[in-house]
């Protein structure tokens, strides 16, 4: 287990403008080990990977050593020549090129004719070494996500890897695919290739790692032997705080139902989902990614149409054609993908905040004054305690947590009766997380029915009155947080 040290970082700093992404990192990876790197979003994991792989140059003063020799300055080519390969979270593949070319793209560097036969041969060899069979001439954008992952790993191996970083490789995989991936990681490690596995799924981390390094706020918290850590401790190390306040779940079943679905089905996404959300209730919806949670929520919000089943709001049957219908019926939906589906990054806070309620701001002439817009924005900024210089600043000047609050304000400004929060604290720092939990409780006290979609146990237990477990598009369980522990529920989900 204890091979020689392969990669070593000494006092590595990295600053972007005034933001310190890495603050004095001292870290090492040994040959052939499986090393997990964990930490909250924005803690510097990705920056660390980019520094080691030569994408970002670290600030002067630190060392990156490979085999004991300082290798700075690094560029991507040199890092790969030294045996460091990265499987990026976005995979960084060429969607228009074939599987073979993606795997053995290095053969296309430089000038002259492209060695097509050699590329095919190499790709075939690597894939068989991985034990996978993919159509070599197929363009990558025709593959599934799991298959693309294999291509990305194969590309790493083609470059004679000695250390492979895998940045959140399991984020969009199904359970079976994850299991296959973890087997592959063990196989590579047995061949003497070190793997640094970045993940936020703690069950995977515990299942696979030999050593675990925890990062927080751009610093190393420490490196631990995997055997000596339980998940609670790990969370504590990652966040620095214990979310102690366990919410006392209430029984809301006697209250009037706000939202009810009966046998709602959309083929290939979810099947026969029947849920009831009562007034003032916080209902959790958990399950693996791809279990149909988000797809179900999108249908509730009128973004997609169910094939069959009924949806009732305030006891009346609704068929939403668009999300404007859903908004008019008192629904609001905060997407999990804040960057792509939430914010309009370069636009101002005002623009982002009032976009959903613009028609309601019009005066009797049908126009919207700047004053009315700014006032609304400043109101909500104050109410949700959003830290801003000016509401006219672009929203991407805010931290992730404050961005999320602006998005929450966007929907709260519409005075929803039913609020759907899809992974509401992704990329939000711990302090803002607690603030958002408090807000959820406050809203539910005002009678708003809230559906929280999440795979973070802490989040669910801190806010929910009832938790539904979704699996393969169906509701597989209905639990009260009072009668099940976090561990037991997690075991159910990852079973």
């Amino acid at each position, binding site marked *: 287990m204890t091979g020689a040290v392969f990669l070593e970082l000494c006092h590595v700093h990295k600053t972007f403008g005034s933001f310190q992404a890495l603050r004095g990192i001292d870290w090492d990876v040994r040959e052939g080990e499986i090393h997990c790197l964990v930490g909250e979003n924005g803690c510097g994991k990705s*920056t660390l990977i980019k520094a080691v792989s030569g994408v970002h140059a670290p600030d002067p003063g630190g060392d990156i050593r490979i085999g004991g020799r300082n290798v700075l300055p690094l560029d991507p080519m040199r890092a790969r020549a030294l045996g460091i390969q990265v499987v990026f979270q976005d995979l960084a593949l060429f969607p228009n090129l074939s599987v073979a070319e993606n795997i053995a793209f290095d053969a296309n560097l430089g000038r002259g004719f492209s060695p097509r036969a050699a590329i095919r041969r190499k790709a075939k060899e690597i894939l068989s070494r991985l034990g996978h069979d993919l159509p070599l001439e197929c363009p990558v954008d025709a593959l599934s996500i799991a298959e693309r992952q294999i291509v990305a790993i194969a590309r790493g191996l083609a470059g004679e890897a000695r250390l492979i970083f895998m940045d959140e490789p399991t984020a969009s995989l199904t359970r079976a695919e994850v299991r296959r991936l973890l087997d592959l990681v063990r196989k590579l490690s047995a061949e003497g290739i070190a793997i640094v596995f970045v993940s936020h799924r703690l069950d995977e981390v515990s299942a696979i790692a030999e050593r675990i390094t925890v990062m927080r706020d751009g610093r190393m918290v420490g490196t631990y032997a995997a055997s000596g850590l339980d998940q609670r401790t790990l969370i504590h190390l990652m966040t620095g705080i214990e979310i102690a306040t366990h919410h006392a779940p209430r029984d809301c079943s006697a209250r009037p139902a706000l939202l009810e679905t009966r046998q709602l089905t959309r083929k290939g996404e979810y099947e026969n989902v029947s849920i009831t959300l009562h007034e003032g209730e916080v209902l959790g919806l958990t399950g693996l990614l791809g279990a149909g949670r988000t797809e179900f929520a999108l249908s509730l919000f009128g973004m997609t149409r169910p094939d069959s089943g009924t949806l009732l709001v305030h006891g009346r049957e609704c068929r939403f054609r668009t999300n404007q219908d859903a908004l008019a019926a008192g629904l609001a939906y905060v*997407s999990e993908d*804040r960057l792509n589906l939430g914010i309009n990054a370069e636009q101002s806070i005002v*623009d982002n905040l009032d*976009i*959903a309620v613009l028609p309601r701001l019009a005066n009797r002439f049908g*126009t919207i004054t700047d004053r009315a817009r700014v006032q609304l924005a400043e109101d909500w900024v104050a109410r949700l305690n959003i830290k801003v*210089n000016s509401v006219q600043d672009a929203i991407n000047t805010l931290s*992730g947590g404050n961005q999320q609050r602006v998005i929450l304000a966007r929907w709260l400004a519409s005075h929803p009766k039913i609020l759907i929060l899809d992974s509401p604290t992704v990329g939000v720092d711990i302090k803002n997380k607690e603030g958002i939990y408090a807000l959820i409780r406050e809203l539910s006290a005002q009678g708003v029915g809230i559906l929280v979609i999440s795979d973070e146990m802490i989040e669910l237990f801190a806010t929910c009155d009832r938790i539904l477990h979704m699996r393969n598009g169906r509701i597989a369980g209905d639990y009260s947080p009072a009668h099940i522990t976090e561990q037991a529920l997690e075991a159910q989900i990852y079973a």
Partner: protein
Amino acid sequence: MSENLPVTGNKTGHSASMTDLAAPFRRLFPARVSGQALAALALAIGFSLIVPGFFSLGSMRSMMFQLPQLGLLALAMAIPMMSGGLNLAIIAIANACGLAMVTVLGHLPLAGHGTGYVGFCIVIVLMVGAVLGTALGGVTGWLIVRTKVHPILVTLGIMSIVEGTSIWLTRGEVVSGLPALYGQIGNASLAQIPLAFLAFLAVAGVVHLLLQHTAFGISIRMIGSNALATRYSAVDVDRVTIRIYALSGFLCFCAACLMLARFNSASAAYAKSYLLVTVLAAVLGGVDPNGGFGRVTGLVLAMIMLQLIATGFNLLGFSDYLTLAIWGLVLIGVACAQSMVKKRR
């Protein structure tokens, strides 16, 4: 996680009372736009110093006659650009409107009738043109929404079809036959200011109001910066997109009205060289070619700048082509300067 990098916002350090006083002005003319205003002013002063007669009433009036046409077409181009698109069909639509109006007017028995009757007919024909322009734009928008094909390609196709139809129906010839009244109104002046210029200002004012102070206008820029997020924010992106191109088509009609007055005729080939110049004008006016940003005030100032350059060089005896080259160079210069400023930040 680059999205989490807290970038420090620019801190505004002036006192509260100053802010309040200047606020309405700054809203209308934010930093970028006031830069353009300064540039326009500098150009005006520069030309009046080196070009004798630059500041004469005559040259001012000729500028005001020339500017509105390109100005309206640039508006028609700018609005789709703000939404992240492009409308290559604007000239074709404007010419189609002009041809339709002339043809209809030519077939009406106007000779021997009084001014009132002729005026009534002109109004009716204007309505025909407006409906045609808006409808052509609307169809363009509908196609973009339904096919999800890049607007460049859809509008390229529409351009070919509309222009081709115009050429086919007219055999490529110039069509004239406007009643004299039309030209009289179109070339009239109010207190020495050409009516066309006033009409341009009025249209620009209405478009400004639409863009800045209605849900429709604000949504345009939101769609330009992130269409998907805007759709998730319960904005009917499809309907807004159709309206964007319909409005663009309507502005083409407005431009067609002015072109009719100016040339006293219509043709499928008029103003073709303006097509790509409108893109330059829009970008110079602060419209982000990738969508999301742009104001009417900036565009109007850019038009004034371009017109000052054109008239100044014309008076200096330079050819139109040199003016065109200088417009292009100005745009390249501005674009480079902007990217350098961005880099330094």
